[in-house]
């Protein structure tokens, strides 16, 4: 899970793994690790989720956390357009560290429709640039299972060593 601070990475993981949501904000220090077994197209997959501390600028310390990852979810706060700004460079550096692994973009906080800051053009551009883009809400759970499920299936299909 990669993204700027306070985009909802931890909340997405907690929703997915424990079916809970809290409005309370705790900034992650380093990496929090959770596990969940999912069914990906009939195959059980044990996902080990690394919820990585958000940073405004992608730094080398984060690439050390990424090494060995089988897939990436980039998290954008849909109510803060500025959290999109680092996405391209994050993607470049992340793939530099882990290779061309499956990746998706979660446009999070979709429940906050009145505060949504992304334009349809921006969302279309993301859709063209990334293999999978989905609106998610850790608060309501919308899109969360689908996001992780897609990634698990994509990782299974990815060639070994990708």
């Amino acid at each position, binding site marked *: 899970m990669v993204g700027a601070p306070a985009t909802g990475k931890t909340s997405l993981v907690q929703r997915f793994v424990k079916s809970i949501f809290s409005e309370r904000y705790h900034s992650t*220090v380093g990496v929090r690790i959770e596990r969940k077994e999912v069914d990906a197209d009939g195959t059980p997959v044990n996902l080990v989720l690394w919820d990585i501390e958000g940073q405004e600028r992608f730094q080398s310390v984060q690439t*050390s956390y990424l*090494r060995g990852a089988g897939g990436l979810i980039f998290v954008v706060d849909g109510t803060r357009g500025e959290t999109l700004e680092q996405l391209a460079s994050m993607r470049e550096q992340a793939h530099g560290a882990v290779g061309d692994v499956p990746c998706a973009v979660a446009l999070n906080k979709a429940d906050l429709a009145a505060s949504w800051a992304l334009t349809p053009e921006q969302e279309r551009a993301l859709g063209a640039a990334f293999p999978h883009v989905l609106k998610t809400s850790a608060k309501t759970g919308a899109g969360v299972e689908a996001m992780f499920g897609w990634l698990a299936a994509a990782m299974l299909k990815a060639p070994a060593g990708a």
Partner: protein
Amino acid sequence: MEPRPPASAPDAGSRVRIDAFGLSDVGKMRKENEDQFLVASLHKSMQVHHTSLDVFTAIADSQQAGAYLLVVADGVGGLGGGRSASSAAVEALASHIANAVRVYFNRDTDVEDAFLAELERGVDLSHQQIREKLGQSASRGPATTLTVVVVAWPRTYFVHVGDSRAYLFRNGALRQLTRDQTVAEELVDQGVMTEEQATRSGLKNVLTSALGGSEIKPSLGLVDLARGDALLLCTDGLTKHVTDQTITAELGRGEGAEATCRRLVDDALAGGGSDNVSVIVARAAS
């Protein structure tokens, strides 16, 4: 899916001296100290001096990468049960981790995820041992918190159950690595209670997860240390009486680990010493 390769991070290739020290005090109100702590360094036992074989060169390299095991545990249960629980937890965990770290040092295998699983397994084994030795406890039986940190420079793994804490002190700022597993914290998370209400509530002392208790929910994480960082592990005998600001100031003095431990314990005693207090400080040289 492919397992993760061994960690490689900034500073990974250079050794950094770790100055670590632990201290425990019964406090002013309790008759018995039910806390336990452990500060240990871990090394491979075989020493290779010269060889033509690459595999042994790898082992020799790994010998230089000593790991440190830091543990605090705060037993609860009375009549010696708390002390027995914390002792059993630390003993079981330490022997399990010592073996797991030896596996981790073997760089022929991709073992980081396996090592993380072993950390969790060590906590679970400790939990089972307490329950077997001291009986299946109800909510008030012998039980213990457990906060474990393994420093395999620069990567630092932590696993945690209960309300003892681990902190990272970096660039003058103190950040809590662990989250207290208490009823009050859960109620704040659920929006039922404010943080201010939680600090005044008796529920802040009621654990939702404890070794030997009815349920354990180990939380797991990692962080890469940098030169000049310090780690603090402590039981709640410290944090009941010493504010984050004071802890920050004490760590910010830049003294050795032993001196910092003594200052923190003195601060807890000066603040009331209502509970056993245990602290471990580990400083990475600048």
